[in-house]
């Protein structure tokens, strides 16, 4: 399931709903991303997340379908926020449910790596020097590329 929204989410309620009623699920792995108050040496007072409505949902759906084709997953969830956020706010939740832990760990890792390089979101941070667009990191591209080698967990 994909949710792109400005409002906050309740991690406990979302994870409970993800596995509710499916007793084949043996484990759920989740990743929660937060707004940091520091970028390099500079203090960040607030952040705005811009996105491309339509393409964002399409890309997240593609990424989710790729994970489901690669690992035996009972359920997946991606929630990503947009709009104005402050340090400490939740930005993203990725969760994967599977019969066994290895598939859920790997799929969760895969989803957040791909999301960071493929999903059309852009962060603008507000610092003492003014607003600035966050630049993409080479390490994020490297993290996503490691999944190009097909080694699914069984």
């Amino acid at each position, binding site marked *: 399931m994909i949710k792109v929204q400005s409002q906050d989410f309740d991690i406990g309620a979302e994870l409970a709903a993800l596995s509710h009623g499916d007793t084949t699920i043996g484990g759920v792995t989740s990743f929660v991303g937060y707004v940091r108050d520091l970028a390099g040496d500079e203090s960040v007072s607030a952040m705005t997340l*811009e996105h491309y409505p339509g393409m964002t949902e*399409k890309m997240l759906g593609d990424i989710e379908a790729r994970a489901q084709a690669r690992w035996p997953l009972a359920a997946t969830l991606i929630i990503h926020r947009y709009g104005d956020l402050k340090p400490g706010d939740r930005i993203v939740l990725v969760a994967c449910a599977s019969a066994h832990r290895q598939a859920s760990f790997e799929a969760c890792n895969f989803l957040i790596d791909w999301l960071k390089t493929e999903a*059309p979101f*852009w962060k603008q941070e507000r610092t003492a020097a003014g607003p600035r*667009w*966050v*630049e*993409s990191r080479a390490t*994020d591209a490297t993290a996503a590329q490691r999944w190009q080698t097909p080694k699914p967990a069984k």
Partner: protein
Amino acid sequence: MKLLYFAWLRTRTGLGEEEIALPQDVRTVRDLVDWLRQRGPGFSAAFENMKVVRAAVNQSYVQLDHPVSEGDEIAFFPPVTGG
């Protein structure tokens, strides 16, 4: 065709979106970028370095040699920084 600009491409061009008629002799995304650059300093600054610009046609990532046609939704934006 509909053109969309995000993040610093939006601030440099001064536009979030616009409707234009397919310009004559524009066949590919690269042709369109060359045409857009001629429109003024904001546009030439936005498309100065294509290594930091990604393009999407009808909400799918494409390379610069991808064809464009009337009715397409074409978006330009920097490498993504979500998550």
